[in-house]
């Protein structure tokens, strides 16, 4: 490992050195060019130069690109060592790399050539990060906790600013800092720039800790929204400092308060408007799908700049822009565009986050800014920490009085400890006007120290602290189907109870909002095609897939109970029946069987996956049904926690695995469906049989309901064999797809669960009509005529021990041979 480190360092060194050399040596290198003179700018050419050295021509973009590369390489090196990043957050390591790089530059230049300037930071590095957070904001979580977030963001930030400024001033008066020229207003100004918790640092640290969602959204939401407050406070105090203490009267203060509302709400409003604009725009980008994903970036950036131009809160603006448009964008745009947007967002955000941290490190290595004042620096650190905790405790105490789910003490500690300061504070500090504030350098360097302290020290200790305090972590298991269903039941139940009890509460408002949105917003902002998925084909796909999904379940059940799957002899039988056709596929099934036996009841991710599939399908269907049904899934089985888990993580995009998986399943299914269709056309039609729905009359329920305990295996067999044929031919392609899709086989196959389920016959199968059943099922199955209303004897107990359900797993069936070659 040491070697790897060394080589990596060397690489970085080379990079930095080369960029350095380039930056300082245009002259020397051009003097080496005897014929062309000293530089291309001044060249009076005497002959046609074949090659010229035009460094200054490309200098700026070249350096930018190089630095981006260097920063990313740092990240690459860091991420190569997971045993390090497990303990030290990446952001801290990046800063340390920044120190090293900065040291090298300093060593070469004797002056810090590169540093993070506020312009670069605020205009080129920050917007994409914030846009990403807004765009991937878990909306529901965010808005349900909005009250708490706002209180922390507004009151908490004001509290931090005021207490820090006043306490420092008090200490100054007490003589703790020696002889420095800072007045009360300047302390307050300093306090206001230090007050804001930094979103970049917070996400960077918190996303590696995996605390529970509510805690995360509280810290994170606060860090986003407090920007409005910081900007206002900063501007107000900046203006006050310029005005001087004497000119400040009640009027000015009132103006300051008014400006707060204007800045914060104006910014949010502006962002919302832009968000809606993007949504509207995405309605009509059908013909330019290729640049469709770009709009959100451009308009988001415009939202940011516009807010900046109007001196509103630009961060709030871009956050709300992202928050508002995400939903509509995702329904309006093409699937590919959505993915593109998602990835591009992450690339930009993660990339610029990396750059920010590296440059935060680099900026430190600069003698000119270092002004050491032990009292000032230590006191600042101390007060920041203390007041953050006090503020959090007080505010949460108030909040807990009305919160239904109180924030526990441990969580409060994490909230307090999560008050990381970052590049925003640094950017603001650098922005200070040196003529007005004599001790600007002291403030800058204190800010840097605070940033290092919070990001590195607190960042490193955060994880152990979270573990030690046993903070509730983010759920790591996916919701199972039952849980999802239950969740939906929940939501509806709560609303219903509120309705009945006549209380107007959260749920009530949520419902109202949903109705409003459904009625107006989506009509306005979503494509008139009623978010029918982008094209018809896709739509049809979804429909078919739903059928498949349902069948999948049904079939699995029946198949699970098939005799030939369960016992050897039957198996052989089956083999005989299917003849050579399946010969080569047989080993396959055997292997799978063996496998599944082993892992029999292990809990696979499958149930939820197959569930997802249902949902996906449902969605497709719903889309087909038009506007009113668009939210059906939403209302029913759609949003699960899983879906936004981690979405706010900037560096882990693989989160929504399931979605991808579903996509994949989907595509595979489609492909195989196509193939099966083809083969059908070509007359290779697979054996088909039809067993009509066996409707079962509701069993007479005894009060104690003990009347259906043992009717399992038996009836299953009855139709399972008959069905097996139909099951096989229709489901082959699909199954194959699942198997290939790794882990999609339904493991928990309990054939007996659903003895009464009517056989589901897909329409295309039904068309095929009743054909002779080549599988030659047992007599029992053959006796049953299609369409015959078969009433199951519910109490018949399984008489044949040979029929025992040994294997509950859904076996992956052999692929039908005719599809074998082109498929696998």
């Amino acid at each position: 490992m040491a070697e790897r480190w060394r080589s990596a360092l060397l690489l970085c060194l080379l990079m930095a050195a080369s960029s350095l050399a380039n930056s300082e040596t245009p002259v020397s290198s051009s003097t080496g060019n005897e014929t062309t003179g000293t530089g291309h700018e001044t060249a009076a050419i005497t002959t046609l130069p074949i090659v010229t050295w035009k460094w200054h021509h490309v200098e700026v973009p070249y350096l930018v690109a190089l630095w981006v590369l260097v920063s990313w390489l740092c990240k690459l090196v860091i991420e190569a060592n997971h045993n390090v990043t497990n303990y030290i957050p990446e952001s801290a390591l990046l800063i340390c790399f920044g120190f090293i790089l900065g040291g090298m530059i300093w060593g070469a230049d004797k002056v810090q050539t590169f540093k993070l300037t506020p312009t670069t930071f605020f205009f080129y590095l920050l917007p994409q990060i914030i846009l990403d957070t807004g765009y991937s904001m878990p909306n529901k979580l965010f808005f349900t906790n909005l009250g708490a977030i706002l209180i922390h963001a507004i009151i908490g930030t004001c509290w931090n600013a005021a207490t820090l400024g006043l306490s420092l001033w008090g200490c100054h008066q007490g003589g703790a800092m020696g002889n420095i020229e800072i007045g009360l207003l300047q302390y307050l100004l300093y306090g206001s720039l230090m007050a804001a918790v930094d979103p970049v640092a917070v996400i960077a640290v918190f996303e590696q800790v995996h605390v529970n969602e509510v805690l995360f959204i509280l810290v994170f939401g606060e860090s986003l929204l407090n920007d409005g407050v910081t900007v206002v406070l900063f501007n107000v105090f900046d203006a006050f400092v310029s005005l001087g203490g004497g000119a400040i009267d009640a009027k000015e203060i009132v103006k300051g308060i008014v400006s707060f509302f204007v800045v914060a709400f104006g910014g949010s409003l502006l962002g919302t408007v832009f968000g809606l604009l993007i949504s509207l725009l995405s309605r009509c980008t059908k013909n330019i799908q290729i640049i469709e994903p770009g709009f959100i970036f451009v308009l988001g950036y415009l939202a940011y700049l516009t807010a900046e131009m109007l001196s509103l809160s630009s961060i709030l603006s871009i956050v709300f822009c992202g928050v508002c448009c995400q939903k509509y964008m995702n329904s309006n745009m093409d699937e590919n565009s959505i993915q593109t947007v998602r990835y591009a967002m992450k690339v930009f955000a993660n990339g610029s986050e990396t750059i920010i941290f590296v440059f935060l490190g680099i900026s430190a290595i600069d003698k000119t800014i270092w002004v050491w004042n032990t009292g000032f620096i230590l006191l600042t650190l101390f007060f920041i920490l203390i007041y953050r905790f006090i503020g959090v405790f007080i505010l949460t105490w108030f909040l807990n009085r009305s919160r239904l789910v109180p924030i526990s003490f441990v969580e409060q500690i994490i909230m307090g400890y999560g008050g990381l300061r970052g590049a925003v504070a640094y950017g603001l500090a650098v922005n200070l006007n040196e003529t007005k504030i004599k001790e600007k350098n002291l403030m800058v360097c204190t800010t840097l120290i605070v940033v290092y302290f919070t990001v590195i020290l607190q960042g490193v200790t955060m994880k152990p602290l979270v573990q030690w305090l046993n903070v509730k972590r983010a759920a790591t298991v996916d919701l199972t189907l039952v849980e999802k269903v239950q969740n939906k039941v929940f939501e509806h139940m709560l609303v219903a109870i509120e309705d009945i009890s006549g209380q107007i509460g959260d749920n009530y408002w949520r419902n109202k909002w949903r109705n409003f949105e459904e009625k107006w917003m989506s009509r306005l902002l979503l494509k008139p095609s009623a978010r029918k998925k982008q094209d018809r084909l896709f739509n049809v796909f979804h429909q078919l897939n739903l059928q498949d999904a349902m069948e999948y379940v049904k079939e699995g059940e029946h198949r699970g109970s098939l005799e030939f799957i369960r016992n050897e002899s039957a198996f052989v039988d089956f083999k005989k029946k299917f003849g050579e056709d399946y010969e080569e596929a047989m080993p396959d099934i055997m292997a799978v069987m063996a496998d599944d036996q082993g892992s029999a009841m292990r809990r696979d991710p499958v149930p939820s996956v197959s569930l997802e599939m249902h949902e996906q399908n449902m969605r497709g269907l719903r889309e087909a049904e038009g506007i009113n049904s668009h939210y059906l899934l939403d209302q029913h089985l759609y949003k699960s926690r899983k879906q936004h888990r981690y979405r706010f993580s900037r560096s882990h995009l693989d989160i929504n695995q399931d979605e991808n998986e579903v996509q994949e399943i989907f595509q595979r299914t489609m492909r195989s469906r196509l193939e099966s269709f083809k083969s059908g056309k070509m007359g290779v039609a697979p054996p088909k049989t039809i067993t009509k729905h066996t409707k079962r009359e509701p069993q007479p329920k005894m009060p104690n309901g003990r009347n259906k305990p043992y009717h399992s295996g038996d009836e299953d067999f009855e139709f399972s064999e008959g069905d097996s044929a139909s099951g096989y031919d229709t489901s082959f392609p699909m199954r194959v797809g699942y198997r290939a899709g790794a882990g999609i086989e339904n493991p928990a196959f309990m054939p007996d669960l659903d003895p009464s389920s009517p056989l589901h016959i897909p329409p295309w199968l039904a068309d095929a009509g009743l054909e002779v059943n080549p599988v030659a099922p047992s007599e029992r199955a053959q006796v049953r005529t299609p369409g015959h209303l078969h009433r199951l004897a519910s109490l018949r107990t399984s008489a044949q021990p040979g029929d025992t359900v040994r294997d509950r797993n859904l076996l992956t069936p052999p692929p039908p041979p005719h599809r074998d070659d082109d498929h696998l």
Partner: protein
Amino acid sequence: MGATQTHSEYQYENMVGKTGFSTEQIKNLHMRFQQLSGNEKTLRREHLKNIPALANNPIKTEIIEAFFDKRNQLDNELGSYEEIGFEEFLMVMSHFRPLSIKTSEEERTAMRRQKVRFLFNMHDTDGDGKITLEEYRKAVEELLSESGTIGQEGARAIADAAMLEVASTNVPNLGPDDFYEGITFEHFEEILKDLEMESRMHVRFLDMNTANLRCGKTSS
């Protein structure tokens, strides 16, 4: 203070202990009760069905049934009422009380159980202590009832899959001849363990009287 006043005060006191609501909340709910029942002593199903806001709720029948379910009155009786008085109404409502920060751990578990039990009862329509596939299907179907026929099919499939899932997780060693009869309460509790029922299943019962306005309107 008239006699009736003291009478109802006394009643309220009684219910405070039983349901955990504050007197204020009980008063509010009582008003609502009277509003719903049209100032009668008892509430019938039609009363609840007539609540306009409930019309769009896919699981409204289940919810309404729950109000008339004797099992939700904490005395372990089976069957259902034709009409309920205020006390029963309140008992059902009490399932939706939020936890407060002061709730002790035991109370928490108790409340949690109570809430889960309520949900369970909602699904277990025949009261045999098991949610059978039939029952579960019905529940899911109802949940998806807005989506028409396909919703129904989807519901079936979903219910079936969910049931399989439950069976596989809860009875890992299900013998070959065993049949999974349905979700028992214990299983149900186990399944919902991660959902943090106790903190989520609640309605904000206001101390303040917001219903007042409407009440005033209807009574005048």
